[in-house]
C-alpha cells in the first residue's frame, strides 16, 4: 500500500490543492485497523527522507484507498519509523465529481456587488449627503417686473399669450 507525500500550501477550503511532492513514495504498515477517514499507519523510511516527511510533508495520497489526506499528526518512532495520522480530504479527492454537481450559490467572490442586498457589509452610522443633480428654476435676484398688482375693475382685453418657460 503506497503512500505519496506532498507539501500542501493551499487553504483547507480550496477545492484545488497546490501540491508539491516531498520524499519518496513509501509502503505503509497498518496498525491494527486502517480507518478510511482518519487512517493511522507506520512508515519505515530511509534516513534521508525522514527529515522531509517529518519536517515538511503535510498532505498525502494513499493509492489503495484512492484518497487524499491531510496529515494531522506525525510521530517519529525508533528504527526510522514514522507514525502518521491523516484526515480525509474529500473536497480534493472528489474535486472533479464535485465540480459537475449543481448547486445554488449565495455568496461568490467574483460576483460584483449587485442589487441583491448584502447585509454583511458594515456601514457607517452617519449619513453622507451628496448633491446629485441641480437645475435652476427661479431667480431671486431679478430686478425686473417682479410685482403683480391686482386691481378692481376692468377685466377685458385679455389675450392668449404666455405659457411655459424653463
Amino acid at each position: 500500500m503506497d503512500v505519496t507525500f506532498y507539501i500542501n500550501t493551499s487553504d483547507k477550503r480550496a477545492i484545488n490543492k497546490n501540491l508539491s511532492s516531498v520524499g519518496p513514495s513509501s509502503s505503509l504498515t497498518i496498525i491494527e485497523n486502517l480507518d478510511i477517514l482518519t487512517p493511522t499507519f507506520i512508515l519505515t523510511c530511509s534516513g534521508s527522507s525522514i527529515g522531509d516527511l517529518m519536517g515538511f510533508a503535510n498532505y498525502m495520497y494513499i493509492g489503495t484507498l484512492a484518497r487524499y489526506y491531510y496529515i494531522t499528526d506525525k510521530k517519529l518512532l525508533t528504527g526510522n519509523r514514522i507514525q502518521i495520522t491523516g484526515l480525509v480530504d474529500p473536497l480534493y479527492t472528489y474535486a472533479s465529481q464535485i465540480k459537475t454537481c449543481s448547486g445554488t450559490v449565495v455568496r461568490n467572490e467574483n460576483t460584483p456587488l449587485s442589487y441583491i442586498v448584502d447585509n454583511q457589509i458594515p456601514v457607517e452610522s452617519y449619513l453622507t449627503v451628496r448633491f446629485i443633480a441641480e437645475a435652476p428654476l427661479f431667480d431671486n435676484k431679478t430686478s425686473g417686473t417682479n410685482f403683480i398688482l391686482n386691481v378692481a375693475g376692468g377685466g377685458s382685453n385679455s389675450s392668449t399669450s404666455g405659457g411655459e418657460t424653463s
Partner: protein
Amino acid sequence: MKIENHKILLDDGADTGLEVLSNVGDFDGISFPKGISYSFFENKEPCVNSFYGEHNITGFTLPTRYKAYNLAKPYLAQKVTKYRNVLFIQRLVPVIPIVQYKNSPTFSNSSTFLFPSGVTYTPLVDKIITNVVRNKILIVPFFWSSGSVKEKFIDNYTSDIVDFSFFNYKLYYTDYKNKKYELINDYCNPSAAYLNANLITTKVANYYLQSSIPFEKFEEWTYPTSDLGSRATVVNKFTKHPEIEQQKPFVLSNDDVVRDNAGGFGARPTFSGSDYSDTTGYFESLAPRMTQTLAAQLNEPSSSTSICNLPLTAKSDFIKFINSIGLPYLTHLPTSWDDIEENTQVPVIKDNGQVDEAATPQSPANATHFDDNLNKLTDSKINTPDNDPGATISDTSIDPPADDTNKLPTINLFNRTFALTATEVRTLADELWNADDTKFEEIKNGLALMGGNPIQGLIDLRLYPIDFTQWTGTTEKIIVGRTTLDTSGRRIETSTIPQFTADLGTISGQYGNFMDFEPFSVFQIYLPFVGTNDLPANLVIGHSISAKASVDIITGAISYIVKADGYPILYKNGTIGVSIPMTADNATEYAGNVIHATNNVVQTAGNTTKTIANDAAKATSLKGAITDPSSNIAGAVSTGVDVVTGASAIATAGYDLSTTLNSTTIQQSGTASPSNSLYTSMNVYILQEYHNPVIPNNYAHDIGNACRTSGNVGNFTGYTIFSNVDLTGVSCTESEKTIILETLQNGVYL
C-alpha cells in the same frame, strides 16, 4: 519597489491598488536574478504565489511585454477612479505578472524558459485579461519572406508565393478612446528562433504559434525534447492552469506547414512528388528525410486540397488559428486608424471567455463585442449590473400622461392685473396716499360698488422671484375701479399661468448597487418654496427626473409636478408670491395670522427636533419680510412688525412654523408670506443621503459578495458559498458527502 527576502514587494505606501497601477512601469527593464522563486505582493496580499515555482531559471528581464498593459492602464485607472470600485482596483494588481506570464517571453537559443507551475490568478483577473487587454490588442498576421526580407500579407498571399517561409504576426495596441494604435511587438518568428533548425514540422509550427500567443493560456502539452537535439533549450512543457478551463488554440494541419531553413522543404507551389509522407510531423522521420532534402518530392497533401492551393489552405487555417486566439485582427498592416476601425475582424467571445467559433469572425460593423465589450466590462459588469437598476415606472404600454393643455383663463376676467417694478410700486403708493381731493373723490366715487373705500380697489400686491416681462403686453396707466391713475404698469396678457421646468437629467446612484436603495440611501428633492421631499430610490435611480412648476400669479400659489421618465411621481404645493401688506387692516390681519400660527407652534414645540439655527433663521426671515423696503408701501405696517417681533421668539420654537403659516395662509392681500423662502435656493436639486459602506479590502475573497444564482460547482470561481448542492454522482461515503456538503455550505475556494 524593492527586492527583499526573495520577494518582490509592490509597495507604494497606499492601501489601494490604484497607486500600484501607477507603478506598474517600475517593472520595465528590471532584471530578476536566477535561482530565486518569486512571489508578487501588493502590500501584504499575495497576488501570485511562486511565480516561477521551483524551477531554476537563468534570469530574465521584463521590457516591452508590459507595454500593452501599461498602455491600457490609464484607461483602467480612469474607470477605477470614476467608479471607486476598490475591489476592482485591487484585483487589477495580479495582472502584472499574469500579463508577463501569458505574454510569452522572448526566446533565444541560449535561454531556458519554463512556464510557471502553481500560478494562481483569480478568475476576475482572467476576465480582465480576456475582456480588457484582449480588446486593446490587435493582431496582424503576415508572412515573412526570408529570401527578400519582404513582407507578404495574407490577402496578397495566393498562388504567387515564391518563398513560403512561415507565418508570423504583429501585435498592436489600440486605443479606441483616443483613436491611436501602436506596434507592440513582433511575435512568433520561428525563422529567427530556429536559425539552426533542420526542419520545421507541423508540430513545431503549432508549438511556435501557440507558445507565443499573447494573453492566452496553454493546454498542457509535452514536447518531445529528445528530438530537438541542440535545440532542447526550448520550452519543454506548458503547465496547465490549475483552476481555469483553457481553450486550446486551433492546431494547424500538415497541409499548412512546413519548411526547412535550407530551403529544401517547404510548402511551395512547386512541390510535388513523393516525400510529403511526414504526416505526423514528428522528428522521428527527420533523418531519413534529411538525406533526400534537396531532392524531396512531396506527395499530394493528405486533404483534398491540391498542392497549388496549399497556400490558400494555409491561409484559411491560419485565420482559424487567429480566431481561436480571440484577438481582433487585421489581415494587413494597418495604414490608419480608420483602416483599423473599418477592417478589423472581431472574434466573438462567449460569456465563458471561449471563442464562439460558429459566430466568428464578426465584421467591424457588427462587432458589438469589440469595444463594447470593454465598455460593458468597465461600465457595467464591474460596477453596474446589466439590469435596470431602477424600478419600472409604469407599464410601458401606457404613455406618460401629457401635460394639461387647459387654457381656461384665470386672469383679466373681472379685474385687471399689472406687472410692476419696485419703482412703479412706490410711485403707485405715492399717488394713492398723496392724491389731491379731486383725485381721491374720483377714485372713491368710482368704487361706489365696493363701498367707496379707495383701498378696496387694490385687491392684491405680490412679489415674485420671477420677471414677468415675457408675459406682459403694453404699458398702460393703472385703472382702479373706473379711475385711471398716473402710474403705469404692464398688463398681464397671458390667459394661462406661467410654468417653469427644471430638467435634472438621469440620476445615477453613488454605488451602482444595493447600497443606493433604502434603507442604505434616501433620496430627496428640494423644491423652492416647498422644501425637501422624499423620493423612493427605485423611482429615481436610472430615471430621468424633471420638476415642473406652475405659478398662480393671482393667489401666489405654486404647484409642482415631479416626473420620472415623464410619469408624475410627486405633487407638491406651496406659496411663492410674497404678499405685500398695503393697509392697516391688512397688516393687522397679517399679524393675527402670525400670532395664530405661532400659538400653534408653541403647542407642539416640545416635539420638534429641528435645530435652533434653522428656526432662528426662519424667524429672522419672517421679520425681514415684513420690514422689507418693498413692503413699506403700507404705512401702517409698523404695527405688524411689533407684533411679529414679540412673537418671533416663540416662533423660533419649530420648523413647523412655515408649514403652519402656509396652512393658515389666506390667499388675499396682507396675509403671511413665504418671503423667507426668498432667502433659500431657487434651484431644484436632488440629494442622496447614504451610509458609507466600510468594505474591507479582502471582503469578496474572504466573505464573498451576495448573489443568488445556480449552476455546476465547477462553473464558479473564487470564494463561494452554496446554500445547497446536489451531490448525486459523487462516489464517496456518506460521511464524506456530509463533509463535502458542509464545506460547500461554509464556503470553498474554487
